[in-house]
């Protein structure tokens, strides 16, 4: 018997081995190497000047990067918040088993199935100041009197970008919540009804607690995904106007591949890694706490 369990140990490793080797080479190693790069002033070719922590010093000594982090946090909170309000609301409606709900579900998933590049370009077209659909209808209903250049106007660009990112991302939340809702047993609601619970009460005492694990996992993933987001914002504004939408990933991209400050860009990426880990840690504490 002992022999068998000894054998299973080895078999377990053998099954996992290909993944472990791949991830060591393709994730762990690049990650450590990225940290290494952050200590150098380098063009990644022949110039490797060790500068210690001075990139980090520069980054924190200079308000600009902190401002970018602030813009990114604002962007993330608003986007993820939008996903939650819309995704949760729609999931609850779709769970009511009304006739035609399959059709609504199919329609509402659509933004999630469109590639990010497509979403970016499509909205760039919709928000086009001269020929865009948005301005056309706002004109028609007398909501604006002059064309708004949504993506190059300092006052509105940030909000336009947030709306597009909410549009792209809410279906994911909706799907997760919907799947979560379907795991809550009908019996619980029946029992609550017999005990005289109102709809609001059964939502508060049955639906929310039942959904909590799904909600928290989605919250972690969604926050981290959008915190490091690049494509849609890049295609819409490239970080402009006046750095209004210059979120961290765009800033890192520009430092590395436009200004060729690879070391500094790597240092910024390390800081983003820490922020993401922190976000994950805080949420996980919440999750563990609520499981007790």
């Amino acid at each position, binding site marked *: 018997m002992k022999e068998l369990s000894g054998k299973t*140990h080895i*078999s*377990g*490793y*053998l*099954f*996992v081995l*290909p*993944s*472990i080797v*791949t*991830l060591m080479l*393709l*994730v762990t190693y*690049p*990650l450590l*190497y*990225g940290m290494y*790069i952050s200590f150098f002033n380098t063009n*990644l070719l022949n110039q490797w000047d060790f500068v210690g922590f001075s990139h980090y010093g520069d980054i924190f000594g200079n308000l600009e990067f902190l401002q970018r982090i602030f813009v990114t946090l604002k962007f993330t909170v608003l986007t993820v918040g939008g996903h939650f309000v*819309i995704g949760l*609301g*729609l999931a609850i*409606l*779709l769970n009511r088993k*009304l006739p035609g*709900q399959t059709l609504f579900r199919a*329609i*509402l998933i*659509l933004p999630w199935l*469109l*590639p990010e*590049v*497509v979403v970016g*370009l*499509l*909205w760039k*077209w*919709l928000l086009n100041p*001269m*020929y865009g*659909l948005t301005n056309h209808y706002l004109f028609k209903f007398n909501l604006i009197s002059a064309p708004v250049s949504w993506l190059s106007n300092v006052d509105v660009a940030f909000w336009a970008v947030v709306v597009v990112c909410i*549009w792209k991302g809410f279906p994911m939340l909706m*799907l997760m919540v919907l*799947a*979560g809702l379907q795991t809550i047993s009908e019996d619980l609601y029946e029992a609550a009804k017999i005990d005289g619970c109102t709809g609001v009460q059964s939502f508060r005492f049955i639906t929310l607690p039942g959904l909590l694990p*799904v909600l928290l*996992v989605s919250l972690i*993933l969604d926050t981290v995904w959008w915190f*490091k987001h*690049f494509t849609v914002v*890049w295609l819409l504004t490239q970080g402009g106007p006046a750095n209004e939408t210059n979120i961290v990933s765009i800033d*890192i*991209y520009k430092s*590395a591949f436009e200004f060729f400050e690879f070391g500094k860009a790597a240092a910024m*990426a390390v800081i*983003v890694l820490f922020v*993401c*880990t922190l976000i*994950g840690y805080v949420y996980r504490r919440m999750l563990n706490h609520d499981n007790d």
Partner: protein
Amino acid sequence: MTTIRIRMLLLNLCSYIVLIIASLFVLIPSLWMASTALKRSEDVMSTPLKWIPDTVSFNSFIRIWKEYPFAEYFANSVFIVFTATVISLLFSALAGYGTSRFNFRGKGTFLTFLLMTQMFPSIMLLIPFYKVLKSFGLIDTHLGLILVYISFTIPFCTWMMMGYFQSIPKELDKAAMIDGCSRLRTFVQIILPLSLPGLSATAIYAFLVGWNEYMFAFILTTSESMKTIPVGIAQLNGFYKIEWNDMMAASIVSSLPLIVLFLFLQKYFISSLTAGAVK
């Protein structure tokens, strides 16, 4: 009784109104994409805006294949994403089986590590990947992007597969082994065929990730003949004059594989995704 029925009716009515507004918010942009793609170049910017053009034209859909290297982009994307999906599926099925059936030292660490990789900002890997691929001469090659995409997908796919294998009773493995099957044979001949729904969900996930990916493909490819679809389409955006109808046609064509794939397999997909995420 009647007041309850009226309240139910009102509630349903409100639900429908909200659902219809939300659907319009999704459908109007999508239909405008289709409408633009079906316009002749001279009609795209004509005012007043028309939903149904006077002359419906499929020229954009033809032009993207003829005048742009769209076929090449498409072939690149299909090859890269397909290969990455197959490798990722193979490795994650093995790892998912291993973690669902065996206890071994370091298993917990491995699983936590998989979750952690979802937290890493991919931008963190961009610069080191660029340097490493450059040193190995893999910039501007299919292999370079395949490596990047499997590193993105293996962790989450492993979680999805593990969740699925856990739902298959272990007694099946035991029975097969008593009949004289080896571990590997049990896995390949008994368990894998049973996991088809889980495998297809995982495959969609991996395909979706690769098909959508833009940033890495944008930086790690330089020559026209190596570009993937997202990079190719986004590039249309940079020209002096933007041909919106062509761009929208290309957008529709590039979204179709995902939509079709998803329609066929959505039931498996959603349940596996949540199983992987929640467990």
